[in-house]
């Protein structure tokens, strides 16, 4: 039996999602832009999915743009808004140091093209403070982008307060909600943002699907040119079966949210407490609260996360260090670094992210396997006798 505790990297398809997608792949193959029966059938499936995603995000269906994932949503939001606002003379962008690379690298790309970009520091708990934003923002600021929940440590950012500051100065506010979708209730109105990105595969939907919510009236100049799909905001024939899957996943996630949140929170707290008490030199990274209920990020002294990850995988437990995109490198997590953690502490960091299939027995197993593995890795002296 393998235990999967890496749900912030991706999730398996919900069985209902898989069934509905399989059906749509066979039956709903028309081009949603076509006038005839086949097109209408596809359009109806898209509309249904759009309605489900809108309901999931507490938004109106007309405000949902389907994309091929979180990265595309972030690019569309940031590049699209930046280009739309450029003629007005606003040439400043603000983001935080703990964003996903989809946001950070998009900001850096715009910086190379002459935009002024401010990257807000975070405190040791991994939270972006509204005061920092207040100091950084100017009348020149076009867009502020701060993630809703962090992928590595799970901390929830004070989005409503940050968005209010942006709006005071006439700037737009985008939030990357990829890690909060399916884990926290999403309500675009109470968040007070103008744009928000989600990705289907983080909440048991298919990879290669996502959405950008943009408040009515927000203008984008889409980076990709082409047909008039998605109300002129995202060109290209829609991947109808995949988006059907996204809609079903949004539906399922919305229904389960109220019960899954507390269930995962309790399991996560037990896992965290279990490790902190049994593994010497272990510490939690980031604030305990507010956090996504499924995530805990711990640093374990005197071991490298790379060795831990392999050892746990060989014991049938799948976890990660930092984000999935950074594995294979020994670059310390930019998130933990931004929080001011020591190099050693960042190198020994490990992330557990729980999900729908996680059980009490899984947590017991981790608490049983991890302490002796850590001890074994710490006790290594080379056979070659060099150490």
């Amino acid at each position, binding site marked *: 039996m393998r235990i999967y505790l890496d749900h912030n990297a991706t999730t398996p398809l919900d069985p209902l999602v898989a069934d509905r997608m399989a059906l749509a792949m066979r039956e709903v193959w028309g081009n949603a832009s076509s006038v005839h029966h086949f097109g209408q059938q596809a359009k109806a499936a898209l509309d249904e999915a759009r309605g489900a995603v809108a309901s999931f995000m507490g938004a109106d269906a007309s405000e949902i743009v389907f994309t091929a994932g979180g990265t595309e949503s972030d690019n569309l939001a940031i590049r699209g808004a930046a280009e739309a606002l450029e003629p007005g003379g606003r040439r400043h962008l603000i983001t935080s140091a703990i964003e996903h690379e989809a946001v950070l690298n998009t900001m850096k790309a715009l910086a190379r093209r002459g935009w002024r970009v401010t990257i807000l520091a975070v405190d040791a708990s991994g939270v972006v403070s509204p005061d920092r934003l207040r100091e950084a923002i100017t009348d020149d600021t076009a867009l502020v982008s701060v993630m809703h929940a962090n992928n590595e440590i799970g901390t929830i950012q004070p989005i409503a307060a940050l968005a209010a500051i942006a709006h005071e100065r006439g700037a737009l506010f985008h939030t990357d909600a990829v890690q909060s979708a399916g884990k926290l209730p999403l309500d675009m109105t109470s968040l007070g943002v103008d744009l928000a990105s989600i990705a289907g595969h983080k909440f048991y939907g298919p990879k290669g699907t996502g959405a950008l919510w943009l408040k009515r009236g927000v203008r984008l100049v889409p980076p990709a040119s082409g047909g008039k799909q998605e109300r002129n905001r995202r060109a290209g024939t829609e991947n109808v079966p995949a988006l059907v899957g996204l809609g079903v996943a949004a539906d399922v996630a919305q229904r389960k949210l109220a019960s899954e949140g507390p269930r995962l929170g309790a399991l996560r707290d037990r896992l965290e407490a279990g490790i902190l008490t049994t593994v010497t030199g272990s510490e939690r990274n980031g604030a305990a609260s507010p956090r996504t209920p499924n995530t805990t990020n711990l640093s374990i002294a005197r071991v490298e996360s790379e060795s831990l990850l392999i*050892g746990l995988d060989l014991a049938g437990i799948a976890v990660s260090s930092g984000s999935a995109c950074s594995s294979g490198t020994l670059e310390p997590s930019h998130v933990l670094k931004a929080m001011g953690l020591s190099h050693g502490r960042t190198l020994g960091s490990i992330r557990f992210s729980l999900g729908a299939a996680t059980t009490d027995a899984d947590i017991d197993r981790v608490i049983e396997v991890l302490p002796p593995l850590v001890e074994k890795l710490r006790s290594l002296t080379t*056979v070659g006798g060099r150490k």
Partner: protein
Amino acid sequence: MRIVVAMSGGVDSSVAAALLAEQGHDVIGVSMQLYDQGQTTVSGQKAFGTCCTIDDLYDARRVAATIGIPHYIVNFESQFGEHVVSNFVREYVAGRTPIPCSHCNSELKFAELLDRARAYDADQLATGHYARIEQDASGRYHLHRGADNSKDQTYFLFSLTQRQLARATFPVGHLDKDTVRAHAHRLKLGVASKPDSQEICFVPDGDYAAFVERQAPAALRAGTVVDGEGRVLGMHGGVHRFTIGQRKGLGLSTSEPLYVLAIKPDEAQVVVGSKDALGRTALTAATVNWVSGIAPSAWLPITAQIRHRHAAAPARVRATDEGRVELEFDTPQTAVTPGQAVVFYNGDEVLGGGWID
């Protein structure tokens, strides 16, 4: 038995992994990422050579998937830089000719990686080396040349100790290269026809001098090329550009061919002379390892090999100070080169070796 296989992405270690898996072992493939490929060029562009690159890691991963074993990449960049690359540069700057592969074996594969293997409850670490390990009735391990003498790699493994040999296994050591490739074809491994790697992996273009110059620009200084009497014959750009026995690239025009006889880093001098002056019968070596763990107390008749492509020649060796030996060949050997290893054999058994002073 659980066995970790060091997979380079080459055909030998791929077949080693596949054969062990075929025998029913619990095989775990591990590839070492040894350096940031982006640092190998000065232009700032990421360039990829032909060995130990992303392509090789990809090949290793494909082989692991084909034979159905887990595969992990472990990042040993800092250890490789510290133990292998820095030594390589230091040795060249000191006028010596290093062998990074030996250091990689002793400091990384059979140290760091072996440790990891133990932590993951593996009984053994396998590599694709052409070498054989035998255990005698008393339990002592013996290291022998690979069955394919043309591919033998024991010259790079002389520093293995009894403790390391107890945990090491060389699944292709008893095979010849053609058989290894035949296995690779039979097992449908994508690397079956991949060429053997030739160069030192972190210098894929083979230009060691340029590599050393990039790594240690401050340590380099120009000097003179002199003959045996100290007469200046020419100038050179740094002693790291020379190795004992080198004939090309001296920048001299003389009627008879001249060879590098000695390198004097302190004076930035390269001494050249005729080929017959290259022969030497005696040498000393340091950091000596005796595979048995026991240094001989008197002169021991052996054959000795002083570089990878050298036919081991009859000699006698004796231990002097701690970890040191003196060695006398029966007949003069060409180009005894400081920084290279001297490895002692009894027939095809490796008795030990050390680093030539």
